[in-house]
């Protein structure tokens, strides 16, 4: 019982996910700064940001709109992100084997942060937040199908196993990235993760210069700190998920630690590079991108899998 509590709260649960997410957020910002001839933030900056918002900053509530929904949405988003993280990390780190069908639960839990952002934005009663929420809805509709198809293809590749642990076992000798279909799926998955994280080509729901941070516009103080933490957590969880789906997971023992960290940083570097070398696309362009091109790639990959490639 006490051991379970340790798993949930410290390692690999809440604290581990939050701290790793903060470090990855720093990594992302530092690389961005180097690409833009800037110096970049100090190592602890993401944590300074979080604690400043949590403890120091005033919380201002919108006069119109539903206050309880507005305040609960960030809590649910953080819960969803951390639960997904727990379900991913326990099998990946070989602590618990998980249960049959957990990959489908993970798929649902990873959608919760985006959904709660929408609910919180609509509860704030701000027209800019409403525009942001409507854009995020369209974006979810477009990328979730692709994400589901990717997971279906992975299940197909892993001999119809719907348990994350077994998917990892199949990859023990040869990770899925080693095949043509694996490479195709990985490319699509990176773009989907980019959209899930709301990074630049697909950040139209925040779109600072259009709708001034869209659905987060009314958030301040502690609720915004929760959103920040949820975002940090997602920045850690989704690359870990990609690692476990394509790169054979992470091992935290011996020299493997270095290799695992490199895998993670590599994926985050890829996401950072994409976000720094592209302008924001319009929502209709993003929808066409996922509905037509990305879905097409996944279907090609599925056909390749059926041919054993």
């Amino acid at each position, binding site marked *: 019982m006490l051991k379970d509590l340790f798993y949930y709260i410290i390692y690999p649960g809440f604290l581990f996910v939050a701290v790793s997410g903060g470090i990855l957020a720093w990594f992302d910002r530092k690389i*961005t700064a180097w*690409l*833009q*001839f*800037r110096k970049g933030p100090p190592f602890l900056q993401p944590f300074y940001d979080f604690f400043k918002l949590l403890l120091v900053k005033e919380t201002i509530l919108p006069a119109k709109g539903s206050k309880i929904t507005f305040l609960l949405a960030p809590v649910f988003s953080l819960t969803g992100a951390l639960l997904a993280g727990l379900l991913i990390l326990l099998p990946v780190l070989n602590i618990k084997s998980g249960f049959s069908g957990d990959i489908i639960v993970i798929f649902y839990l990873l959608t919760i942060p985006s959904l709660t952002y929408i609910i919180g934005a609509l509860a704030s009663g701000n*027209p*800019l937040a*409403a*525009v942001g929420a*409507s*854009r995020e809805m369209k974006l979810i509709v477009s990328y979730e199908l692709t994400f589901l198809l990717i997971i279906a293809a992975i299940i197909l590749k892993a001999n119809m196993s719907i348990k994350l642990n077994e998917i990892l076992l199949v990859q023990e000798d040869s990770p899925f990235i080693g095949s043509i279909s694996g490479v195709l799926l990985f490319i699509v998955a990176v773009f989907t993760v980019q959209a899930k994280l709301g990074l*630049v*080509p697909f*950040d*139209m729901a925040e*779109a*600072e*210069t*259009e*709708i*001034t941070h869209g659905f987060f516009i009314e958030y301040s103080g502690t609720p915004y700190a929760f959103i920040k933490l949820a975002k940090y957590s997602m920045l850690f969880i989704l690359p870990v998920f990609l690692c476990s789906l394509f790169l054979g997971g992470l091992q935290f023992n011996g020299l493997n630690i270095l290799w695992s960290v490199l895998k993670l940083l590599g994926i985050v570097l890829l996401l950072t590079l994409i976000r*720094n*070398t*592209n*302008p*924001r*696309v*319009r*929502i*209709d*362009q993003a929808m066409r991108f996922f509905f037509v091109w990305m879905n097409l790639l996944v279907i090609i990959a599925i056909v390749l899998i059926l041919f054993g490639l």
Partner: protein
Amino acid sequence: MSKIIPIGPYHPLQEEPELFKLYCEGEIVKDVKWETGYNHRGIEKLSESKTFDQVFFLVERVCGICSTSHPFAFANCIEEIGEIEVPNRAKYIRTIIAELERIHSHLLWVGLAGHFLGYNTVFMWAWKYREPVLDLFEKISGNRNSYAMFKIGGVRRDIENDKIPEIKKILDLVKKKTDLLTGAVMDDPVIHARTKGVGILTKEDIIDFAAVGPTARASGIAIDVRKDDPYAAYPLINWKVITAEEGDVFAKAKVRLLEMYESVSIIEQCLDGLKKEPEGQTEIVVKNIPEGIGTGHAEAPRGEVFHFAKTNGSNYPVRHKIRAPSYVNIATFKKSCIGQTISDATISLAAVDPCYCCTERLASVYDFGSGHKILGGEELIRISQKQTDKLLKL
């Protein structure tokens, strides 16, 4: 029912205070209304209480970015009244300063346009490459901005001939960096997707709104004061007006990027011209300005800057009127934004490179406390006409 999406008064899209109300149905902009009045400084009135030498420093501060075009236009205006012929060396130096300003302003716009599209790397790179231009300004005038180079009859500082190779070296650097930036912007497929066919202004729209500068040139109208009514050293050198036919945001970016190369070439020719002129002949002494009415214009980075002044033989203007290019360019949002999505409308608004502090006009007067209207537009026009009648009798 349409909802209002406000852009302003304080918004990351624009650096200056102004308010655009986008009346949206879903994502589609159905109507746009524009409100200003956050920035009115009464420069024209202030100018009437300054001597001619002081007015140059005042009009330099109309706009921080085109801070040479206003003194340039005012110098043209006063020199027309006084029938003053400026020495060739001063003409070259004036042209160099004006063209350097065009380079730095266009680089600034390219960076901002990248930022508006969420492409912050372009923003940072363009502004970094703008730094050598500002350093060059510091070398020539002693200031990175607001150069204080202009005076009636010439310029305040000379460019010594032994500085010229150094300036040319920095210009080569700027050109190389511009190549890099142009490549990055013109060949990016995602930028094409975001800017091509967006915010199109046809030739007729440009004529209807009397738009000027790169906004007009991007729609295929080769309007440029430097060619149409040459001043300073522009008739002495070889250069061409850059135009594009499409009229969309991408065409505007293309025109601005290509104009930078033209500016570099103009500056190089001016530097060659400087070598032929004797050093030190940068001004002629002007004793007094006779009574008269004069107009002067100059091609600012955003288009034509127009100055009108009336003098009465004393050492200050009795009437000074300024029309900045943004005043006509901003109004084109009525054609370019309506029917677009919010994403496209914002970049279309920014594509004319608006400058609100140039544009602010007094349209009506409200009481700050109660919000009652004190003076409407018609009353203000009547007061203005009365004032003009009084001035004409002076």
